[in-house]
């Protein structure tokens, strides 16, 4: 029983990575780590110049300097099973950021029946 507070913006990121152009491998490695250090991933938000990988508790990791206009955003989004359309991901948009889901898994026994 505490005072009411409206939902606030996300707090500080749990960790950050500064993307250097051409160094996508380092960005992907950083994102791989989010798998272990965050809980079940929920959403990815991509700005023009940064992205957030957000888990079910709304804890998140931030990649700075990499946004939807960059070609290098694609391998990063793929690494965490983001449901985005590669044909339109780089398009400019009249929004602060684009938001995508990331809940995909392998179906049961997919590897065994193939």
């Amino acid at each position, binding site marked *: 029983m505490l005072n009411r507070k409206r939902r606030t913006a996300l707090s500080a990121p749990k960790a950050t990575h500064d993307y250097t152009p051409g160094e996508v491998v380092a960005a992907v490695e950083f994102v791989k780590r989010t798998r272990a250090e965050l809980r079940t991933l929920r959403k990815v938000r991509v700005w023009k110049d940064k992205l957030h990988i957000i888990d079910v508790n709304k804890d998140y990791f931030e990649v700075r300097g990499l946004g939807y206009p960059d070609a290098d955003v694609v391998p990063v989004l793929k690494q965490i099973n983001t449901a985005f*359309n590669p044909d339109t991901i780089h398009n400019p948009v009249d929004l602060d950021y684009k938001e995508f889901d990331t809940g995909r898994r392998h179906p049961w026994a997919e590897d065994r029946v193939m």
Partner: protein
Amino acid sequence: MIQTNGTSTKAPSMNEATPKDPFNNNCYGTIVDSGYKLISLPVLDVTDFNERIIRGYEEGWGERDLPADLSVARSLIPAGTASLRDFSNIAPEIPEYIPENCTGCMDCVTECPDTAILGKVLSESEWSKKMQTIPEGDREMFSKQWSKTKKYYDAGKKKLGDGGMFNIIIDPSKCKGCAECVTVCDDDALKMIPKTDQVMIDSRKSHRYFKNIGPSDNKYINDNLLIDMMLKEETHIYTGGAGSCAGCGEGTALRMMCAATGSKYGDQWGLVAATGCNTVYTSTYPYNPYLVPWTNSLFENAPADAIGVRMRWDQMGWHDKPIWCIGGDGAMFDIGFQALSRLFASGMNVKVFVLDTQVYSNTGGQASTSTYTGQNTKMSVHGKAVGGKQERRKEIAQIAIMHPRTYVAQTTCAHVNHFYKSVLGALEFDGPALVVCYTTCQPEHGVADNMAGEQARLAVDSRAFPILIYDPRKGDKVKERLSLVGNPAVKDDWFVNPKTKEPVTFIDFARSEGRFAKHFDKDGNPSETLERAKQDRLENWHLLQELAGLR
């Protein structure tokens, strides 16, 4: 003392605290405690069943040592025995409630597949008195879990002069840690935390105090606000303790259907189930989550079985007691289809509820006629030559509409009002009714445990699964009877997602689920089959728009 076999004279009742369950979380009653649900049958002694047979299974010796006596040999199970099942140790994490952020929306309570997160509202004056009954050492821990929401506190103060204190509590003996509740909470009022010893002690105690302090105060429950129905004990017809996978979409669907029916009929109604996941997780001996009578005959004959039960109940003068016939898409679209059609043609007062996972979930994921084009299933394996299922999905709702005077709805648990209206409409209708509910099957769809609601919403947004209500009482033209209200951008081909400004098509839905993953090349381009699936869904949507007079 708890003995390890046979009858025990000194052991506490299974419905009381035991050394293994020190705060008695594992017990009957959802919002308040209750006794066993006794019946008078010569072949089933409920108290003996719970004290001896359930004890045997909970202590781990039942399967090996119980004699095949009258009860055991018949596989009869009393109502609600799943209440005594302990799931405390199956998940590493449990939700934590953050009362200062809560708005009292009840989404978490509604969407949990396992009746493991519960709500309560008490007037502030009564609440203050009740808090004095909590042991002093725990009073602060418990009282700070109550929230002053606008919905109950401010509005209650204004209208009734006394604000409603609102509480959300987790039943740690039933929670499977799926995080569905956290995902549906838009207000950051829940988060998952590790189950440390202290977390579990506090959680067990809180759930115990929650049950001890009595029911919600009905003056805060607005009967027109359907989402609030789960504040009432009589809606919890489906208890926790069923054996479904963590986050199973079917569990939520059955719970919500039971809640809506319970809100009108209490426990005076029955269920006839077709074999499938639903029958397995609700009758894995000796655990049964239903508080109403339930029967299962076969995979293929549930509607015929339901016709028989209806006839007998009518002979007994039980015309007013509804019967729900439930089954998966395999049971209703495929093997039980002619029995279903016969039921609709009979005009009999039986309601049918389909758990549409678009696959035979129980037997490991074979294709049904409900399976989407392109879907990777065990009978339409995605390989080099053939990319998943090649046929189109059959639409059982449209087929049912063409039967004489049949009420039909298609809905999802993520569309709470639409869901409840569909189910209550079916119950009010004097004749046969069909409610088809989209339900995720986590392992077969290839989605995370917390995604049931999100994926159901996306299925509707992408026209994969349009929602509808067809009520024959609404007029004599199809367009007067059929409503597509609830689908986004109902007059357009596709809905445009405001968060990406892009149209949401079947391909976008497919991108988010593992069952379609093989249709995308390494650059993320969809296959030709998936383009066909998208066209199929658009044609289906156009047909519905046309029938509803929107095209």
